[in-house]
């Protein structure tokens, strides 16, 4: 989830730039901005997730510009403190993303242990999860060696193309 400061920073940068329109997506969070009469206007993002997933909205006003942000998931796995301002960005080097729309499975069957858990060491060819679409089972590999620092989705969750699934810190 983007922090208010980060969004402010973005607005500032875009305001000063020649960019007319800007969209940014990470971990189910989408932010899009468009300039109107030379001013930045941030639009409410499109909600693409399953309706059962909890939602959170942050609003902030800043010198006539409006910002709306919605997250698809309340980052249950993220140990971030509620005080967003004092928190540093999580340390990771690589995000493993989904190559297709489908269902995320953290284990090869409901009876088995998850492929990986937070704190596990992985190698480039370690299988970290399965994404299934239309009965095609895609074994996702870590592609880097390191330590799993964050798991961004839950077992059985619907994931979008390009959605980050894991964060890995190189060791």
């Amino acid at each position: 989830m983007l922090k208010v400061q980060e969004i402010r920073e973005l607005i500032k940068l875009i305001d000063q730039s020649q960019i007319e329109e800007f969209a940014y997506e990470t971990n189910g969070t989408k932010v899009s901005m468009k300039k109107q009469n030379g001013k930045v206007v941030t639009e409410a993002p499109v909600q693409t997730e399953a309706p059962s997933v909890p939602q959170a909205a942050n609003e902030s006003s800043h010198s006539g510009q409006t910002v709306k942000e919605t997250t698809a998931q309340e980052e249950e796995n993220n140990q971030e403190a509620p005080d967003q301002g004092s928190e540093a960005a999580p340390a990771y080097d690589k995000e493993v993303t989904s190559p297709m729309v489908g269902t995320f499975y953290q284990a090869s069957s409901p009876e088995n242990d998850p492929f990986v858990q937070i704190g596990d060491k992985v190698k480039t060819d370690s299988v970290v999860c399965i994404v299934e679409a239309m009965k095609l089972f895609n074994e996702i590999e870590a592609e880097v060696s390191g330590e799993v620092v964050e798991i961004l989705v839950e077992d059985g969750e619907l994931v979008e193309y390009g959605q980050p699934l894991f964060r890995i810190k190189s060791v």
Partner: protein
Amino acid sequence: MESTRTRLIALLEEQADDYISGQQLSDQLHISRTAVWKHMKELEKDGYEIEAVSRKGYRIVSSPDKVSLNTLQWGLKTEWVGKQLIHHRQIDSTQRMGHELAKQHYPHGTVIIADEQLEGKGRMERNWYSPQGEGIWMSFLLRPELPPVHAPQLTLLAAAAVAEVLAETCQVTPQIKWPNDVLIDHKKMAGILTEMQAEHDHIQYVVLGMGINMNQPADSLAEDIHYKATSLLIETGETWSLQFVTQALLEKFEQLYDLYMREGFPPIKSKWEAYGYRIGERVSISTMQEKWEGKLLNIEPDGALNAEGPDGEEKKLYSAEIHWGKGGYYA
């Protein structure tokens, strides 16, 4: 060795009911007459019935019904599917072997066939009951030049290939339950399991497995699946040649795959839709999160299922289980 044998079979086959002399065979294959005789003995072991008449030569009286490398490749009209063919009497799982061969750089189109799987793999590591000689248990190793997002369409393609072969060759009326279970008379006759190793924009390989129930008598289908599985024998009352149907499947699969590569998904989608099961009907649908009753509307241009969602709205599904009949099959 294998190619000499294949050519020998081809030569014998060309002659049909006529004899071909040992000398002719020896000349054409550039091997000794003793070697010809040895090959004949090997073919007999594979179940070929060969008649040898002095001064006339050899002829094939009957080809075996037995599945072997020879019988599978003999007369197989494919360009690339099954050119590299691995056959085992007994194997843990053709899927598992497919993964191994992929890592050993076996080519696109390699086919692994087993008479019996000891640990046949179904979805989610469920077992697939695959006894000796009673069904077709095989996996295709594919290296498609496709973006990974399109790869799930291969599962619908494979189901369409199985359904077409059953309809055209075996005179039954198959249906496909989205996305890829092949049913006859509401019971499952064939299952498909597709596994992929891919990076973001590149498919390393796909192993596509098919399990087709062929000659199981009703009492041979394992107890726990009896009520929801069937075989071609049960449906037609006839025993089928595994080799014959396997070849038809390899040929059909290649044909549809080439069509897909040439023209994309639309022609595959039409073929699939000709067999679509319960489209337009109300069924029970479940995803990992929820379960509801809704109508199956159609399939999307990308192969996803379009169905009525829990609140009656249209919902595009990439992963879902379809159940039907309260308390009946797949309850």
